């Protein structure tokens, strides 16, 4: 009898633990402006805390943008110590603004109380202007890889040095039947990424492929006209090296 009650108690605890795997978030999202045709877009965002500005890069990937300029807007309330109240973001040409939001983890409430944002929290896109942008690109030396589905597929570490973020990273030269999966790692002055090859077709015959990594950064032109890459702005692929299997 005691075992039954103990078991029922454990079932309830296990069920609650499975449901409440993590506390929910409250989220406030800004209304997004329509995208400009084939141009980069400068977006001004006002928010009560640092917003997450996400773009869809046009190739199915998502990226979080860092502000190109962050400044206190006159009379903007409730800015946090790390967020001055207003920021300017550059959405590169070909990319689409996906979401602009602020969020905070709620305290876990299992027995009532919805996870709602406080009334003082806000985020809004105050302006969105089509702008000209410069583009800096770098390519790695060609890398030759043997892809054989009967063996563990190789994984590479790429290190990129860039004057700004985000860095768009692409692999050129993927053969049929194999797909490179790009995982972001540390991001900053040096961006580290991992490129892992996967067989999209497990029956694909072994292939020797020569591929190249390409890194791109973009920035807003200071004036209304197209411009060259400003001095001090650059991107460079420092290394693309295969990781030893025991390093995975």
């Amino acid at each position, binding site marked *: 009898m005691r075992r039954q009650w103990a078991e029922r108690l454990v079932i309830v605890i296990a069920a609650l*633990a499975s449901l409440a795997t*993590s506390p929910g978030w409250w989220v406030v999202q800004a209304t997004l402006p329509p995208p400009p045709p084939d141009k980069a877009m400068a977006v001004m965002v006002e928010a009560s805390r640092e917003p997450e500005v996400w773009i869809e890069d046009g190739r199915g990937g998502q990226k979080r943008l860092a502000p190109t300029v962050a400044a206190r807007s006159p009379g903007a309330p409730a800015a946090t110590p790390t967020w001055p109240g207003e920021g300017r973001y550059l959405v590169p040409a070909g990319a689409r603004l996906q979401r602009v939001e602020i969020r905070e983890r709620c305290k876990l409430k299992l027995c009532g109380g919805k996870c709602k944002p406080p009334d003082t929290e806000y985020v809004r896109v105050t302006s969105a202007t089509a702008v000209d942008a410069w583009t800096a690109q770098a390519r790695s030396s060609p890398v030759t890889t043997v892809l054989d589905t009967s063996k563990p597929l190789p994984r590479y570490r790429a290190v990129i040095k860039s004057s700004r973020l985000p860095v768009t990273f692409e692999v050129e030269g993927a053969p049929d039947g194999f797909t490179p999966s790009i995982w972001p790692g540390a991001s900053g002055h040096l961006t580290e990424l991992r490129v892992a090859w996967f067989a999209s077709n497990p029956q694909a015959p072994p292939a020797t492929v020569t591929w190249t990594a390409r890194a791109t950064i973009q920035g807003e032109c200071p004036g209304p006209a197209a411009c060259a890459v400003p001095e001090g702005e650059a991107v460079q692929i420092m290394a693309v090296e295969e990781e030893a299997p025991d390093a995975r």
Partner: protein
Amino acid sequence: MRGDPPPSGLLHPIALAAIALLIVNDHLLKARYPGWLTGKLSDVAGMVFFPLLLRALIVPILRLRSDLHPGRELRERLLIACVALTALLLAAIKLAEPATAACEQLLGALLGGRVEIVRDPTDLLALPFVLVAPWIARRAERRAAADRFVLV
């Protein structure tokens, strides 16, 4: 009179440890030490006890039907189905965007607010731990059978 229900295995020390690990990891360790290891621990813990929980929730429903009194063979089949379902759920949630989104919506609706699940294929490293569940369940049933034999 149908007698005591068979043990679910959830009182086994490994299952209890897995439940405790899930709670501590989700609500303490992930926030303090975000990283690769804490990202995997909850999946491993879930793989160990979730099939047992699933079966423990289904068996009473089967017992409500007089024609479906779950005997040993049916419980064993149910156990295998729960193990397979748990493994499939993890694989789907970690690999397929629609499955992740559906799970996020379900948990978000139950908890109120937005729940986010990180879709990371390397979390599938936790899959082999699902085999611990049937081992625990069979051990618990053998132990219960032995206890009954001693009592008789």
